[in-house]
């Protein structure tokens, strides 16, 4: 147990020192149930037994949301929503760096 713990803590410490400069946080999608017309139900029924909408979000390491895009049908994949999130009028902004030597 001791070795697992030290291995985990040391790993995290090292990784945090690598990433704290440029890594903003993490992204993922989750599902929220919605009421839909019967004719729309199939479009909204993804992995679950009931109609849902997908909520795509980004958060920082302080557990605060930095971007939320809700409303896509439950059948839509997270990667499809990200694609939309990067190009729409109110996009998820991830600053590009400049070239360095």
């Amino acid at each position, binding site marked *: 147990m001791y070795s697992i713990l030290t291995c985990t803590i040391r790993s995290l410490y090292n990784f945090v020192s690598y990433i704290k400069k440029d890594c903003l946080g993490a992204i993922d999608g989750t599902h929220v149930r919605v009421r839909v017309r019967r004719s729309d139900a199939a479009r909204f029924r993804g992995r679950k037994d009931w109609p849902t909408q997908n909520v795509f979000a980004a958060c920082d390491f302080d557990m605060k949301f930095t971007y939320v895009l809700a409303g896509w049908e439950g059948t839509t994949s997270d*990667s499809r929503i990200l694609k939309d999130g*990067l190009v729409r009028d109110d996009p998820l902004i991830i600053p*590009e760096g400049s070239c360095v030597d």
Partner: protein
Amino acid sequence: MIRVGKYYLGDAGFMLKRAIMTPYRGVRYHLKEFTRRCPQNPRELFNHRHSSLRNVIERTFGVLKKRFPIFASGSEPHYVVDTMTDIVLACCILHNYLRGVDNDEALIDEVDRELMEDQMESNISQVREDDYRIGCNFRDDLVEKMWRDYENS
């Protein structure tokens, strides 16, 4: 010359790109998979660290859903998509505000416990991952043998 920039961590369901860092596929990933054996090679080490940090989004979703039971999957939905979208955004804004004024230790502990249990139950995807890994190794061996034979003929 290296092009540097900001990025987010995403799971293997996303495609690797400049701004989205994803884990290696076919390599141990979930923290639970490392409890018995520390990372054994560079890719496993990377995946382990990726996994440790990426779970911040799962914890955040977890806290949001705990704090606002309207999002719990057990509750019958009363609202249509557009209304629900507004409710989601409003609750996320409230969540951010509350993160600043209330450190929610108890809530986060509860979420962490549940995430741990979920991982225990995700044995099916575990089997699929193992299967993929075996497939990868088998293919790599075959490729190597094929190439050797081709070069020698």
